[in-house]
């Protein structure tokens, strides 16, 4: 391991990506992702990276470049956020359908309208159904580790799916903090060189992306369903191996925190989990049976790991930083679906941190207090509960 040092979030990601030695990196800038691709182009310009860099004219093209490069047999990487993710939506589906192990960073930012560059998970949630593995990280060190793990999971012949590492924009991308990460040599020993399964090769001239009818489309889709399921074991294994080699662990599919004895179990993902851990400590010190299960991998959805990490849970208090408009928070919806028919634990869906609304320890305490009240009253709200919503929003300033 390299000695711990203060690193800048976007540069840490760029260095992690560089350590994975991608053959092609496609770039397009959007806040708060820009510093990642800027750094990668700098690493290339200064001779510290030998990847081919393609500076695309849109995110749709950037992701398409990565798709073409991956199919042509090299490790491919790109990054985006917000509108860029939405613009490239259909490319994610084709990547997943072609089973291309492209790894990408999504620096989570909310989506228009109104236009905002502040963080929430609405962008990556909008493509959760596309067939990509989705990691959400809490810290810079985890972001570094997860990019390396993501390539290994994505490229595993049993998985072969694109993977995105989601990190909260600004909060993590623009953060400086001390982190300890493996050396480039250590990354080499952990992440084997890319062995492409797909290829575009005149000596083996295959046709990719044919059109199919009702006779086989469902089977192809189902193969992705099954690959996603296989990815669960692979993610656990790859995370354990990372911990064993480098002595640093960030959980597997989930990271439980004081969840073993907790009756009220917070469920969340991304950077807010750190604030929640602090709050859980404070509440436990006050004698409350509170814990946290941080979801590290949202797709595939690790419902078994959530449930088994919190055996005494009476209620899962879920915080979604996104909302399916006209429905509920996506994590809450999934968890409710899997727990359907069970009397306990209940699921309460909170929506918070939308458009960058800050989530302080006080907000987390409010969430716990509301949960206790709902439990006491025996009324579990079916609708999402907003956290930190102002009662009035001025229309002009």
């Amino acid at each position, binding site marked *: 391991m390299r000695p711990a040092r203060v690193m800048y979030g976007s540069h840490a990601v760029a260095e992690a990506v560089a350590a994975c030695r991608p053959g092609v990196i496609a770039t397009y800038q959007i806040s708060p992702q820009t510093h990642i691709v800027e750094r990668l182009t700098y690493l290339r310009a200064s001779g510290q990276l030998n990847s081919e860099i393609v500076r695309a004219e849109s995110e749709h093209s950037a992701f398409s470049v990565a798709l073409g490069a991956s199919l042509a047999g090299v490790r491919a990487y790109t990054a985006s956020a917000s509108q860029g993710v939405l613009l490239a939506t259909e490319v994610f589906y084709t990547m997943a*359908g*072609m*089973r291309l192990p492209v790894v990408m960073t999504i620096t989570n930012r909310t989506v228009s309208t109104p236009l905002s560059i502040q963080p929430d998970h609405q962008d990556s949630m909008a493509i959760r159904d596309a067939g990509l593995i989705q990691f959400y990280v809490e810290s810079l060190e985890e972001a570094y580790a997860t990019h390396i793990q993501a390539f290994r999971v994505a490229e595993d*012949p*049993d998985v*072969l799916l694109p993977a995105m590492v989601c990190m909260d924009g600004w909060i993590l991308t623009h953060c400086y903090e001390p982190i300890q990460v493996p050396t480039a040599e250590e990354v080499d020993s952990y992440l084997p060189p890319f062995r492409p*399964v*797909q290829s575009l090769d005149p000596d083996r*001239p*295959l*046709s*990719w*992306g*044919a*059109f*199919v009818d009702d006779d*086989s489309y469902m*089977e*192809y889709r189902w*193969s992705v369903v099954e*690959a996603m399921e296989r990815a669960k074991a692979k993610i656990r294994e790859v995370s354990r191996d990372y911990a064993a080699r480098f002595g640093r662990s960030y959980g597997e599919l989930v990271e439980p925190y004081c969840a073993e004895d907790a009756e009220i179990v917070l469920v969340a993902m991304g950077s807010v989990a750190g604030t929640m851990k602090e709050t859980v400590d404070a509440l436990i010190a006050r004698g409350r049976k509170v814990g946290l299960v941080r979801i590290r991998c949202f797709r595939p959805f690790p419902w078994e790991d959530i449930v088994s990490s919190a055996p005494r849970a009476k209620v899962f208090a879920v915080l979604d930083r996104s909302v399916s408009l006209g429905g509920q928070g996506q994590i809450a919806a999934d968890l409710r679906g899997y727990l359907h028919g069970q009397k306990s634990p209940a699921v309460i869906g909170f929506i918070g941190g939308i458009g960058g609304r800050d989530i302080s320890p006080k907000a987390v305490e409010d969430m716990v207090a509301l949960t206790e009240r709902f439990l006491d009253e025996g009324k579990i709200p079916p609708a999402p509960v907003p956290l930190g919503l102002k009662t009035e929003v001025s229309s002009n300033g």
Partner: protein
Amino acid sequence: MRGDIPLAAVDQPGTSRAYHTGAWRLVRPLVQEEKCTGCGLCNLYCPDAAIQVVKSERGSRRVARFNPLYCKGCGICAAECKAGAITMVTEDNAREAAK
């Protein structure tokens, strides 16, 4: 490609040959070999690679021969033949002519 992982609709090369579009045809080209100069224009203009210049069965000249497996009967070859050696006929008429 791993056999046990279905990778999105990947195909072996040239497998379309297994689909015989000749069944779409209503009329077919009839080549009058004595008129055919073997210039190959019909082959160049055929959308379906369904007409080739081959050695005549009746002599040593090279003449156009249509491929019944794939010819869709569009008639471009007949329309473009400078020697007027190709006419479009129904299958029945073609059989008649072959006698």
